[in-house]
């Protein structure tokens, strides 16, 4: 064979290069074989997520059922009735959007200045928008259905902003402390307990503000009176993910 004519040294070199090639191929192979993401959830976590999904499915089914009911009402009615049920729907929608006054049980949270913890503190405590946003988020998280900051009803697009050391909600100032937040909820006790133990108390205390939470059986929230500006919203033409 011709290969035998090679010197031993040459053979060794070629073998060495073959070794390198083999090594490289093996590394590449192992790298490509790696599974990128493994599901490491245990049985309990999977059950919990299934339950969550089932709950959201149920909620969606309920929504479909109500929508279908409304549709049936529209179909099986005379013109006058149709108009009245349309009006009813509009009323419902307005209520959902926060354009009407709303009564119900709930809690009030009074924000008051806290003077105890500093000596010679001449500054009057200032409210800031960030804290209020946190508070609103937490209230929504714990089951608040409707919220009003002072006289300003919070709707889905209500801005809470700092303007010249004043907090503006819906474009108008809510004034200095003390101020009151009205919250409607279906389960006042639950919400109150959550707020009592919330970390937010500490955050507010850092700004020298204390929270006074009271349960109220009969609350009236003001309506949102400014026009709702939806210029920024567009109808999405493309199909959303998950739809077919």
């Amino acid at each position, binding site marked *: 064979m011709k290969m035998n004519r090679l010197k031993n040294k040459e*053979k060794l070199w*070629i073998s060495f290069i*073959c*070794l390198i090639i*083999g090594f*490289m191929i093996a590394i590449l192979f*192992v790298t490509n074989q790696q599974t990128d993401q493994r599901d490491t959830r245990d049985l309990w976590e999977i059950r919990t997520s299934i339950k969550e999904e089932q709950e959201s499915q149920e909620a969606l089914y309920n929504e479909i059922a109500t929508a279908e009911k409304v549709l049936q009402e529209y179909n099986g009615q005379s013109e006058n009735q149709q108009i009245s049920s349309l009006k009813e729907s509009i009323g419902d929608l307005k209520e959902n959007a926060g354009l009407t006054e709303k009564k119900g049980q709930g809690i009030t949270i009074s924000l008051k200045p806290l003077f105890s913890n500093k000596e010679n503190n001449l500054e009057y405590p200032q409210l800031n928008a960030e804290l209020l946003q946190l508070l609103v988020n937490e209230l929504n998280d714990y089951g608040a259905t409707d919220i009003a900051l002072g006289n300003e009803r919070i709707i889905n697009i209500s801005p809470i902003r700092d303007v010249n050391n004043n907090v503006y909600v819906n474009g108008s100032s809510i004034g200095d402390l003390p101020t009151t937040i009205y919250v409607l909820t279906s389960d006042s006790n639950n919400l109150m307990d959550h707020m009592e133990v919330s970390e937010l108390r500490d955050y507010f205390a850092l700004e020298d503000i204390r929270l006074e939470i009271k349960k109220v059986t009969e609350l009236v929230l003001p309506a949102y009176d400014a026009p709702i500006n939806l210029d920024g919203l567009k109808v999405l033409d493309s199909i959303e993910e998950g739809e077919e």
Partner: protein
Amino acid sequence: MWLPALFLVLGLILGFLTNITIPDIYANYLSIAVLAALDTLFGGIRAQLEDKFDQKVFITGFFFNVSLAAFLAFLGVQLGIDLYLAAIFAFGVRLFQNLAIIRRLLLEKYRFIKK
């Protein structure tokens, strides 16, 4: 002929046993380098069969091609051009050419031995 093959297997075993993996972003470079290495190897085998084998050409070709391919891929990533495609194309074409020539040479040799 058996020694390089043995070392190839040895390299494969070594690679699998050490279980080294490289980050995904570098996998491209390695795949190009592997292609270049294979190209050089087959080129070497062909040269050997044609009695034109030169050890220096083979060894420098191996390291030069591998690093050039990796560099080309790197440059491509930096410039946003898929330059590694050029490397894959060049090496792929050469690989097939070399394999075809090797096959023919082996066939001729087989016929020669049969006679």
